[in-house]
């Protein structure tokens, strides 16, 4: 196994393969692997920026994925008590890639697509930013345990920012980065809790009640499960919309955003599934 430092410097296979292609070199900077807590998350929202400006308003900083209060949180053992990292990165091909901070580096390319992640027991997901203004803050395209597809999640950064601004305008003090980490954690949670349906009686997810009660893909169920968990179906966790139309939320969110998946009710920490 290679150390975390080395793993952090690897760029993805597709972006790093053609080092002579100048255009690809610059675009390749978009594709940073955020090595986090023994897993890979390929972040297509990480564009190189001037850190002094801290201008991350339309993209996803790697810190939203490496955030200590984000995915996968404490207490999650992973499989075989080894966390998520079981891949020997030295098995990849050697390529020179340009790292946005340290310049040219020679590294091992880990091609985790096409089922490789599953063969090697590594958690590997893809995060892409989006500006498609659908009502939800994010969208998960598939589970980690499906070897035929790639777990892709689409994060609507402007919508997340809008939600944070909204709650802050009514007195909350949410940190945008932590909020983004929570949304990403929720979606990454779906990739490993995809097989969980806490309430098979309700399957429709279009109205407020069914969103709160369907329990699909690991969502918590209103009235049954804890509200303080990444898997609460609304953002921010704890909030319940105005179900009786009296002009007030039926439950307000927690003053502090959650930092973890729950260990009971329903116990998201123990329900994960990585392999097919």
């Amino acid at each position: 196994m290679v150390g975390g430092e080395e793993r952090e410097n690897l760029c993805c296979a597709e972006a790093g393969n053609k080092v002579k292609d100048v255009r690809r070199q610059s675009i390749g900077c978009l594709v940073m692997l955020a090595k986090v807590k023994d897993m890979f998350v390929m972040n297509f929202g990480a564009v190189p920026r001037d850190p002094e400006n801290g201008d991350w308003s339309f993209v996803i900083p790697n810190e939203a994925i490496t955030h200590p209060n984000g995915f996968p949180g404490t207490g999650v053992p992973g499989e075989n008590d080894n966390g998520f990292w079981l891949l020997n990165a030295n098995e990849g091909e050697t390529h020179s890639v340009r790292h946005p901070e340290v310049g040219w580096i020679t590294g091992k390319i880990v091609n985790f697509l096409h089922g490789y992640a599953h063969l090697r027991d590594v958690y590997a997901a893809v995060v892409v930013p989006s500006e498609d203004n659908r009502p939800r803050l994010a969208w998960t395209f598939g589970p980690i345990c499906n070897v035929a597809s790639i777990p892709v999640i689409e994060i609507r950064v402007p919508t997340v920012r809008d939600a944070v601004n909204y709650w802050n305008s009514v007195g909350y003090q949410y940190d945008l980065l932590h909020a983004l980490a929570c949304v990403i954690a929720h979606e990454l949670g779906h990739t490993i809790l995809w097989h969980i349906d806490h309430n098979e009686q309700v399957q429709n997810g279009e109205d407020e009640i069914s969103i709160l009660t369907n329990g699909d893909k690991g969502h918590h169920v209103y009235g049954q499960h804890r509200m303080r968990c990444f898997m609460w179906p609304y953002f921010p966790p704890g909030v319940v919309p105005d179900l009786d139309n009296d002009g007030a939320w039926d439950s307000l969110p927690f003053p502090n955003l959650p930092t973890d998946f729950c260990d009971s009710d329903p116990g998201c920490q123990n329900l994960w599934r990585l392999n097919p």
Partner: protein
Amino acid sequence: MKLTQRALAMLLFVAFLDFAKASPPGGRIYPRANEEATEKLKEAYAAYYQGWYERAIELAMDVYQKYGDVHARWWPSWVKRFYKGKLPDPHDYGAILGETIEGRALMTMMVKGVTVGSLLERSYRRLGYHGVYGKGTNVPSLLKSVEGAKKRGYRPPQPPPKNTWRPLPLKFREEDYFILVPVEEACKVLGLPYRLQVEQKTKKPIGVYVGEYVEKKRPLLVIQEVLRRGGVMTSPVYEENGVVWVPFYWLAEQAGIRWWEVRNGKIYVAPRQGTK
């Protein structure tokens, strides 16, 4: 194990089919908006971002009454103009994700999209209808909530009388319903400090800083990254013949202008209200 781009595209297509069947969290499939509805939602989208919430609601409701809660997706005109390459059908999620993940361009950010419910929820929220939070997935419930608030006597904040508004001596252009202004001229007119960064060889502007630069604090608005990225256009910001065009609403926000409109070929602004 190397993956060709075609194989990756196929994989993503399969992944998308999987997703379409599975209807994952947040993955409701909306009816695709037709041409007429798309055009109206494009206008409503721009109206929302420019602070014209009533207009956004009016247009979205018009679409809703004719076609229901549909989903419009489109390539903005500036993307069509600047992107060198073929753009897929904006509703082709698989192709857009494939292009994004292959590293050609951040297409998930370049394509714009909106649903009727999303626009209504966000616009009503901006007008102070708190009860609509989380109801963008169910328009009837959202409208019921609005009606309830109106019956209880809620009225959104009103702009100052129009006769107090003043015209700005500023040229502008309209692109996909966004009002764009030349940044230097606009900053002068609005009294905003700015700094233009010019590339020595080409003499072309490569960055704009709007607002005071204080050490270790970013200026109010940094346009540098957008210009530098060139082809990856996520916002209507571009350089043309040495002039940098930016959305007027960006600058209005920095100048503390909440109310503005275009009337008789001129931009009119309301007196500042003390809040942004």
